[in-house]
């Protein structure tokens, strides 16, 4: 959680300084959902994510240096800079991809469940999605399919109360999104998304269910995002007091530090040392991303297909040609 928080502090600052191009969506405030859920998974399990993917990616084990390089649009990024913040993917680490098409993470997670089932694998899929995505048809289609086929998938709705600037009540006529599980005939679990151990426990149980052939579970984690929808969002839809209250009362890191201290599981300088370690990691990541090479412009034409189509080069070559066209 400390790593995600600090990584995104750097992303916030580097973005503000125009070092990171495009759009970035920070997950600060929601760290316990990412860490609790991904911590319950095995390395082989696949995660699908949303536009708010940095936390999920780090929690699933993606390398912070490479991740930041990807956000910078640099060559050593996981997708060689071709995807950026909204399309982070690293299949070797089980990160099946960030999906900024809202709702699209859910059918992709179901698809991982199909592979696991038909190949008899001992891993599962986990699809993260936001509260807003639950209004999208493909989310329902995909969960219904998984329920009907008893697929090994865990669905985690990160309910942070907002979709862009729209409130929960503007989008849903039920209070708890987990209640929808009943309509698919699967268990729906509500969990405090600010409590990393609670998330871990709930997702562990859901994963176990999935792997033992009992089918999918819908988990709703109640959480909150501290930053705007995207960096640069002026946030006219909520008060500063509301944000401050969550930060002061419900911060997943501070609260867990207290829990650990009470249990005497965090002693002496341990926390200070952890913070210092994390600082060092993210500082190194910034240096790495800054110094990394940009991808070659021509590499923009790679990876469209496995077996390249000559049409692409034909179009490009014609467009770049300077002189007249011969008869």
């Amino acid at each position: 959680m400390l790593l995600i928080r600090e990584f995104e502090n750097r992303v916030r600052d580097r973005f503000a300084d125009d070092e990171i191009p495009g759009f970035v969506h920070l997950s600060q405030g929601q760290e316990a959902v990412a860490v609790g859920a991904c911590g319950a998974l095995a390395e082989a399990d696949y995660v699908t994510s949303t536009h708010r993917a940095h936390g999920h990616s780090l929690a699933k084990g993606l390398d912070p240096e490479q991740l930041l390089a990807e956000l910078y649009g640099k060559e050593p990024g996981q997708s060689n800079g071709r995807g950026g913040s909204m399309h982070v993917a690293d299949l070797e680490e089980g990160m099946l991809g960030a999906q900024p098409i809202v709702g699209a993470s859910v059918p992709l997670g179901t698809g991982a469940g199909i592979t696991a089932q038909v190949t008899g694998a001992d891993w599962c899929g986990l699809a993260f999605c936001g509260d807003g995505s639950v209004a999208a048809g493909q989310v329902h289609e995909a969960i219904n399919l998984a329920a009907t086929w008893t697929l090994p998938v865990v669905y985690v709705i990160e309910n942070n109360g907002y979709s862009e600037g729209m409130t929960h009540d503007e989008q849903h006529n039920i209070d708890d999104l987990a209640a929808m599980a009943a309509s698919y005939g699967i268990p729906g679990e509500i969990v405090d998304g600010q409590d990393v151990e609670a998330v871990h426990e709930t997702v562990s149980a859901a994963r176990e269910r999935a792997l033992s052939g009992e089918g999918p579970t819908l988990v709703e984690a109640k959480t909150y995002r501290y930053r705007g929808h995207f960096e640069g969002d002026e946030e006219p839809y909520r008060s500063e007091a509301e944000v401050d209250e969550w930060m002061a009362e419900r911060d997943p890191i501070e609260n867990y530090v207290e829990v650990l201290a009470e249990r005497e599981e965090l002693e002496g300088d341990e926390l200070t040392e952890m913070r210092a370690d994390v600082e060092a990691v993210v500082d190194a990541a910034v240096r790495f991303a800054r110094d990394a090479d940009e991808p070659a412009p021509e590499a923009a034409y790679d990876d469209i297909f496995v077996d390249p189509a000559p049409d692409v080069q034909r179009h490009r070559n014609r467009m770049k040609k300077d002189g007249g066209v011969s008869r």
Partner: protein
Amino acid sequence: MSAEELADRQTETRTVRDALRDGIREEMLADDRVFVMGQDEEDGGSFEVTAGLHDEFGFDRVRNTPISEAAQVGAGVGAAATGIRPLVNLSFSDFIGVCFDQVMNQAGKLRYMFGGASNVPLTIRAIEGAGLNAAAQHSGTVHSLVAHLPGIKAVAPGTPAAAKGLMKSAIRSEDPVVFFENKTIYERRGPVPTDEAFTVPLGEATVERAGDDVTIVATQRLLGEAIAAASDVDDVSVEVLDPRSLYPLDTEAIADSVKKTGRLVVADESPLSYGFHAEIVTRVLEDAFWSLDAPVQRVGVPDTPIPFAPSQEDEVVPDADDVRRAIRRTI
């Protein structure tokens, strides 16, 4: 708009964004059946095109929708068929994938299948274009796909005047219109007639820059790039047309220009294969074949999704240099 079109009119300088908003607002004032819906629409929607309209017209006229593009467009069709005039904001045009059935099978076919029993006076706004490092799913130009669909009209203005005039015509149209905006030209400025009766009819192109040697048919962002390229090549007299409407298409204006110049460049940010460029070229071959003096040239995206890395986005997204080279290749 051409100098001719503007000659006898009082105009004011507006941005594309303001012109779009003016058009929507005037139609909302004129006809209380006009109903606006979209995600975050009460707050101005993406890029703040409808800012202020919720305050002015209230929840009965301007509404937030959940993230439900299929419902937005499908319900838009149903509402249009039963008596109101919805203006549905899809935000980024890439999201049209989520509701393609509602566009293709519902909006496009309802009237025809039902033997003309119902009109579908629906307008769908969709925001296109690369250039903001928004990567593959927020940078697309999809209007060729949509203009291809039977029963759907499509427009993609490149100037503030066209933006306003076409918005008014789209909302008034009894047919479904998909209104494509390019996200990089919202701040583009230009003269817009102040007269409230001003509209731009669907299906009329305009000459944005007159010339004699080469015709460029250019849309949206590339309209600006084409005009810049035209000024660059001072030894060649370049005529630049903005088709404004993709469907119906003003074949006559384009063919007439090519009959005069004998040379054609088509500049549009769509992927190059199977799209807008091919349609323009074919219509010119059909109507002005014997006037052509050189092979036609296309400027567009070479069939790639739009990459994130700035160095790569610059590589695949065409600009004034590409247009200039295309002009040279016709000479």
